[in-house]
Every structure is written in C-alpha cells, then in structure tokens.
C-alpha cells in the first residue's frame, strides 16, 4: 500500500472542495472500512493519495453528522452515525425495526463500531472480479463483465447488465423499505433526494453505483414520520453467521389496518446492482388479509423478472423464502416451525 496524506477539513464544504480539485486521488474517508481495502488491493490510484478525514469536522456541523434526532416530521440520522449506534438506538421507534435489525446484522461487532451510515450506503461492490487486482473488469474499464460466463454465484438476478454486481449496502435495503430520503451537499448547496434516486443501474454508468456528482457529500438520511400501525422487519441469509455478506436480504415495511395490509414496501438486497423494490409484490399485497397462505402464494412476485446467471438461480427461491419470513414477522403471524 502506498503512503497517503490525511487531510483534516474544517467543515463539509471544504472537504467537498478538496475532492473536487483531484477526484481520482482524493477520497472522503469516514471509517475507511471499504476505502482502505481498495487502497490495499491497489484498486485506486496509488500516487499522491489524500484521505479527507470527515471525522475531523467539529462544531455544530460535526455533531449533526453524528446525531440521531427529530428532523421535520421525521427522524434524521447523520452520515457519520455508526452501525452499532443505529442497531442499539432508542431514538429509532419500533416501526423502524428493519433499520435496527439490518444495522445489527452487518459484518462484525468490531466493524459495526467503526462503520458509518454514509460509508455503508456509498461503499463499492464486493464482486470478486471488481475487487481483485488481477482482474480487469468492465467496472474498472475493461472490455466485458467477467461474471458473464465466469464465477457468478454471488451476482445479480435482477437489473443486471452490462455489469452484474449486487449492491453491497445492507442499510440501503432497510431505508428503501422505510421510504427514506438523503441530503447531499453539492456545488449548489444541499439537496434532497429519495433513497432510490441515490443509486443507479450499471446501464446508466457502469463505473459508478451512486448518482452523486464528483465531490458531492452525503450528510444526512431522513426517515418520514412513522405511520400509525406501521411495522417493519429485515431478514437475511448468509453462508456464515457473521462476518459474511448476504446471499440475499429483504426489508419489509407495512401497515396492518382494519385487518388488511396497507402501504407495503418490500426491498431486496444482494439480488440486483441497486437496492431493489419488489413493486409487483407490493401491489399484490395491498388490501389483502395477511396470512401464511397469502405470503406463500405471492412471494414469487418478489423476484418477478429475474434472469439468473449460470450459478445464481438459487437466489430466486432464497429471496422468496426471506420475503415470506419477513412478511410473517411484520404481520405478527408466526413463521412455521
């Protein structure tokens, strides 16, 4: 790993401006969990690297970046809030359980103590062709996606092409189900966008996973006020019980009102290059009485349109199974033994 300079910006705006000056070499660093991995593997430019230390931002702005608290009608979470904090936060009301569960499931306790909300949302994918210095894949400027016809067990079944990564953010899945928005600081000042608009498919720009402009800095995530009767849950399957990436994950948010499901939002992770809304399933659930039979019957809609590759067709039933489990828990119908 090449030596790098650590820059301590006075505020978010100066951090942003610093990156804009030389975006290839200058990286915003929160915990750096992912960034240092990429630097060690030689995936980023090696010379004259600067890490701009967001944790150095002090004062009211620094506090806001680390805070969880009321924001408008809803709840705001600063970009530097750690996963461990989210997992244990009393400020997150019960309807947002999916976010707590998601944050508590990721990586390991030691990583969760460091890793931040902003970093989790903007981390780069774990595709082994992308992550290996030995492989020149499409995302790194190569001629083709190497997962096509290669080792694609962990790749996308939905939304893939021309690159077939899965998005690595677990928090994004929960936030998508909860209808979150993010605030970003750009050249024209702060702007707000829906969490879904933060991510783009590879066919938009194969080199990037987010829609942020160069230097644009994610400062806050906002959750809308919980609706009466809202419940949410998160389910994940991994090959290892800890310190592993999901094979697939799902977050569900819904309201049971008058014995029927209202406002269902179902988001899938690790099945597509972006956190994936299962809209066909949502439509099928609206107004239905929750039951084990309903969930069994409709779960297949969660992966509607799936086009598995040679080694990942298993993600289809797996994601459906997770959806069933999440719906059971969200509707308080016991999962079968």
């Amino acid at each position, binding site marked *: 790993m090449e030596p790098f300079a650590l820059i301590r910006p006075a505020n978010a705006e100066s951090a942003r401006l610093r990156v804009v000056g030389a975006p290839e070499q200058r990286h915003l660093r929160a915990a750096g969990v992912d960034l240092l991995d990429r630097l060690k593997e030689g995936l980023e430019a090696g010379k004259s690297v600067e890490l701009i230390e967001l944790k150095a931002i002090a004062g009211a702005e620094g506090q806001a970046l680390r805070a969880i608290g009321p924001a408008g009608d809803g709840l705001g979470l600063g970009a530097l809030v750690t996963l461990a904090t989210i997992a244990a936060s009393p400020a997150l009301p019960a309807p947002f359980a999916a976010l707590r569960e998601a944050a508590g499931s990721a990586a390991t306790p030691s990583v969760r103590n460091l890793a931040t909300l902003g970093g989790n949302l903007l981390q780069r994918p774990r595709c082994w062709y992308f992550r290996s210095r030995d492989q020149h894949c499409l995302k790194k400027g190569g001629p083709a996606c190497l997962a096509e016809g290669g080792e694609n067990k962990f790749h996308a079944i939905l939304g893939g092409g021309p690159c077939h990564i899965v998005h690595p953010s677990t928090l994004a899945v929960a936030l998508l189900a909860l209808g979150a928005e993010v605030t970003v600081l750009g050249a024209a000042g702060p702007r707000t966008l829906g969490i879904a608009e933060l991510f783009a498919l590879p066919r938009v720009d194969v080199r990037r996973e987010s829609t942020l402009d160069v230097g644009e800095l994610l400062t806050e995530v906002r959750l809308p006020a919980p609706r009466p009767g809202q419940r949410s849950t998160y389910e994940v399957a991994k090959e*290892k019980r*800890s310190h592993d990436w999901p094979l697939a994950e799902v977050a569900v948010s819904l309201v049971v009102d008058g014995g029927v499901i209202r406002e269902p939002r179902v988001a899938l992770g690790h099945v597509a290059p972006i956190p994936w809304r299962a809209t066909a399933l949502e439509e099928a659930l609206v107004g239905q009485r929750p039951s084990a039979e309903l969930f069994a019957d409709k779960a297949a809609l969660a992966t509607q349109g799936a086009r598995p590759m040679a080694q990942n067709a298993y993600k289809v*039933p797996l994601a459906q199974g997770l959806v069933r489990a999440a719906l059971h828990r969200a509707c308080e119908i016991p999962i079968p033994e």
Partner: protein
Amino acid sequence: MAEAVTVYTLRLGLEGAIKDVKIEAPAGEPRPWDASAQLRVIGHDTARVDGHLKVRGAAQYTHDVRLEGMLHAAVLRSPHPCCVVDSIDVEPARRRPGVQAAIAVAKAGDRLLFAGQDVAAVAARTRAEARAALAAIKVTYRPAPFVVDTAEAMSPSAPVVHAAGDAVTRRTEGDEPGEGSGGSDKGNVRTTPSMKKGDVQKGLRAAELKHEATYTTQCHTHSALETHSVVVRWEAKDKLTVWSSTQGIFSVRDEMVEIFDLKPRDVAVITEFMGGGFGAKFGASAPGSRLGWIAGELARQAKAPVSLLLDRHEEHVCTGNRPDSIQRVAIGATKAGDLTAIHVVAHGSAGIATGAGVGRNAFGIYSACPNARTESHDVFANTGPGTAFRAPGHPQGAFAVELALDELAAKSGLDPLALRLRNVTHPVRKRQLELGRERFQWAKRRADADARRGRGARVLHGVGVACSIWGDYGRKGAASVTVEVGRDGSVVVKNGVQDIGGGITTVLAMVVAEVLGRSVADVEVKLGRAEFGPSVGSGGSQTTSSVAPAARNAAEQVKAQLLEIAAKALDRKKASEVTLGPDGAFKAASKSIPWADLCKKIPGEAAVATATRPGNYGTAPLNLPSGQSYEIAGCQFAAVEVDTWTGVVRVPEILAIHDCGRAHNPLTTRSQINGGVILGVSYALMEQRVMDRRSGRMLNPNLESYKIAGARDVPTIDVVLTEVFTGGNSTGAIGIGEPATIPTAAAIACAVRHAIGAPVRDLPLTPDRVLAALGRVT
C-alpha cells in the same frame, strides 16, 4: 541373538475390557503406564504452561522477529497460469528506494506452471519498499495454454500440464506414513496403486442392495493464522540462523543444509512459537514457493538478515492445499445390511503436484466387507500444489463413502447406525458407535426429525454419523529428550520439537513432573530449537507419541541417578530400597530427604540423561488393515438444522468420540478435537477455493470470500475420549490431531441427507446446493 527384553504383565485394553497382558519391552524400558497406573499429573486437565505468554502477546512468533539491520523481502509471482519466461531483468529493482538485494528465481526459458509461482524477489529496508520495487522488475512472459478445472483437465483434449516425467511424486512429513508411491501418467491423469481386497465386481454382482453415485469435494486451502514465514541471518559465510514458522524444525535445517551446502551443525533453527500448521509447513520452503532459498540468498547478497513473511493472498495460492476430489462410489449389501462390496474410483487435483488420494476410509473402516477397492488418480492442473492437510485424503474419502452408505441405507429402510455397526470389526469403533447411540439419543432424535419432516416443517432436523481411521505412527528413536536436574533443584526438559499448538510443551512438563515428583510449574521446558536435540516433525499425529515416551524414559534415568544418591544419603545399600514420593521427598524406611537437600548432593552441575523411545511393543486391539501400527478409531455424530426456505444449514451439535490412547493432558486433547471438529464444520459448510477458468486465477485469495467458520458457526462440541491402554510405549501416547477432523464433514452431510430426505453430494453444503437438492431451484 535375540535382543534383551523385559517382560511385564500389564493391564491393557479398552476401558471396561481391561485384561492382564504379558508384553516384552526392550531391556531398560520402564514399566509402561497401563490401566492400573496411579498417576498424579498425567491424565489430569492442565492449563498450557505457555498460555500466559500467548495471551499477553509475549510469545515470539516468526512474524515478531526483529533483528538489527533486518531487511524485508517480497516475491514477484507469475500472473499467468502457464507461461514461458522469455527474459527477466532484476537490475531496475536494485535501483529502487531502500532495495538492498534483488534476485531472479525463474530464468529465461523456464516454463511456469501456475499463477503465483516464484519469479523474482527483492529485499529492502521496509516491506512497502520491497513490494513497490517488484514493479520495476522486467519480465517478458509468453503465455501458454492452461487448465485449472479438474474435470476439464481430465479431458484428453486438455493442455498437458507436465512434460512427460516432469512430475515427481512428492511426499512430506505431513503425509500419512507408509502411504503413496509412484504411478503412470495418461495426459494429466496419473494412476496410483490401488488398495484392494477380495473382488469388488463379484461382491457387487452378489449384492441384493446396490447404490452408485458420484461425490465431489472442493479444494481446501490451509488458513493457519500465521502465514508461512522465515527469517534468515548469516552468522558467518558457512553458518546461519533461521527462524521459521514450521511443523518440522529439522526439515528446515536439512533443506537449508542442502540448498547452501552447509553442515547440519552450522544451521540453527528456531521456532519458539508458531501460529498453526495443518501439513503445509515442512521444510524451509512452502510447497509452491522456495522461501528458504529466497530469504537465504537475499540475506547472503545483502549481507543483512532478511525476513520473508507471506501475505494472505500468497498463502492461498502457493503454500499448498487439500486437493479436491471427484469420487465414483459403488457399494453393495445383502438385504440384512451386510456389505458385499465397496468400490471407490477417485480423481482429484493437487494442482501441479501429486497427493490427491482419498485415504483409507472406504477400504479400512467397514472391515467386515470382504471386497473393497479404492483406486486413486492424481489429475494435474495449472494451480498451486496440493500438500498434506490434516489427515490427507481422509475427510474427502469419508464424505463420499459415508454419504453413500446413508443413501444405501435410506433406499432399503436400514438404520444408518445399525448398518455401520454390522460392518465394523474394530472393537473400539464398535464400542464408540454404541456409546454414541445412547449419548446422542440417536433413535429419539431420528424419530423426532422424521416426524418433523412428515409435518412439512420449514426447518428440518437431521442426524448423521461417520467414522475415522488413523494409525499410531509414534516413531522409534526419532526424538532424543534430555532431562536435567540441577544442584539447585531445578528441572529442565529439552528437545528440539516445535509446539504447533497441540500443547507438547505442557505435556513434556507433565511427564517429567510425574516421574520426578515435581509440580508442572517446577519443570522448565526448552523446545523450539534444533540444538535441544533431535526430534520429529509434527505430522502424522506423531508428536506426543514420539516425544512424551522419550521424555519419560529420560526422566526415569535421571530418577535412577537420584535414587543412587539418595541411597547413599539415607545409608542404604541399594537404590531400590529408596522411593521418590509425589512430594519430591526421597524415602527409605523411616528416613527421608527432601528434594532440595538431595539435589545439593548431585556431583557436578546436574544429573542429566538423554533418552529416546523404542518401536511399538505391547499389544493393540487391532492393527491397520495394511500395516503394523495400531488402528486408531473414532466416530462423530452430527445434528443439523436446514432452513428449507433459504437452504442454510446450521450445525448446532457434534458429538466426537475418539480413541487417543492415554490422554496425557485431557484439556489439550479435547482442545485438539475441538479444533478438528471446527475445521471439519468449516470444510463441510463454507471453505472453497474458487478458480476463474478463463484467467486461471484464484478469485477469493483472502479471508472474506474464502470463508472459514467464525465463532457463531461453531457447534456445541461434546468430546468423549475412549481411552485405550495399548502398552505400546512407556507413556501410552498415540495420536489425535488428524483423526479428529476426518468424520466431521461426512457426518454433517449424512445429517443433511437425513433432514431433507435427499443427498447433497458436493461439498461444501452451501445454500445453493441445498435448495437445488430440495428441488426448489428451477
């Protein structure tokens, strides 16, 4: 003339079936510790004497060695799975910052056979400088056709990995002693001699029940916490010191002696502590990288000590692995469940090397079966060399034959445990299976699981059982242990063995404390240096059984010297009139002299004796089918839970029942079994080298996507030791390190089959495969 012998009548056998047995031990051998021996230290849980050093970070591993002026080495590795080196120039690297030496390892014209093979190396002031300098080395490679997939490599149209005669069948100290030999090649396939008895074709024709299927296992890389590492310092032009993370101090010495044409006494090797080894750490080099020569030559040229520590990527690609396997298994039985034939045809790839056999499981465990044949083939491929890996061949072989047995049992409505009990003849194994049946509540758990499946539950439960087979390979005369009792009363035991984590340090202190009436804390153990006397490599599960009896014999000789001195001090004519009590006091009739006072009477500095151990004597319950050594039996029972919605398999519990002779330190014996089980769970559920067929590179050379079991994946492990008193050596030690990992994955696979009612015939048992077996993947 017959050798002089001493005849002892000992209490020997398996607990509960102890008999008087008359044995002949070589003259001078002390009365072996048998079932009637009253032992104060041996057999009692004893915390590791060096545990506090490890916990405090005070233990010095090779990775921790810092010498004055020490340089750091880095190795340039081939990026191509097969290529010819057209030219190589290391000069530009010499001019890079901090670089003190640069050497070419490959030369123009060399054909390199796997991605990761040594090309060149540099030594610089820092590791970062050394790594950066590698980029300056100019190499022209001419890529050549390659194959990395085992099945593809077997095809007649596959590129041929080795030119005829180039591939030498290689063995290491980590292999099972007595196994293996040469073979004949056809394309990339080398046929090795088969193990056979009876006539399997006849046995299959006679069978009323038959089962035939193909089973595969993955390539499993060694993931010892401490990577391969070596530090070399030249003390003079013909004299050097080597620090090495090794399982065999003397194999390191011998390799350096050979490479640099030195005298054995001029090569000092030090391994005070080492961070794990599973068979890949013998010699100064790694199986796929010439570490000893690289570090030694860089140190020689730079005239400074050189530290060469591999990173995790290198550890995965060039330091050995457990070969994969493709096994065609055919078994036959009578309707009652008497096996008539077991036939295994195995292919496996040890990459560019040999050693992909599948062990003795199919051949040796179900010994009532009259017809058995195991045919093994090595398949060459352009991947890093396989090497010994904890019970080489056996976990793969156990998986195939045990799961095949369960499939046969399921087809015919036989209980898998009853089927096994019918077909084993080893009395200890039989006893273990019966014991497990009760302790594991086999019948109840099976019935509960069957009922659960019948109800159509989401999470299915299953139980499975599998056996292990290994031999007592304790070596005659290989370890010379010295025991010294000083005039100040201090006790030192010395031997040039390495403690790879099994706990031999503590066992040596215990043995000597037992004989000399001392406490464990009173005995200083010196090991980890060649100068402390010849010893064995830690392979074949032979460390304790080779070293502990030698330590006892040396301690007994010192004790005899002390008894002579005590006899004089207590006015006795003969030493035999004096006893040494557990409190260290020497007594004769009513008179006694305490340890400290007696030691002051030692003439000279110390009472010293060096001893070794003879070959096995005594009688054993059963020998290995093909050999003289005692057959070590074991079995494991697994309970699994399978989530049919996700395909995820959990292993909540393993019952591990193992013979280990006399467990010298039950605490560390159980710890070794725990380690074997955890390794087996990891192998069963997640570990897998993934090669990219198009680039010939490993895609997961890390510990993120090469997954090893973490704390939450570890089952509750219930260890039962069925002690067997063999009378084979003076302490009754036999091996346990390797047998403990043999049956784990097999038992888990059998339990998964039981749970879901369908076999998953490929390891690891990942959710994709389980969902496919459940018929849920379309």
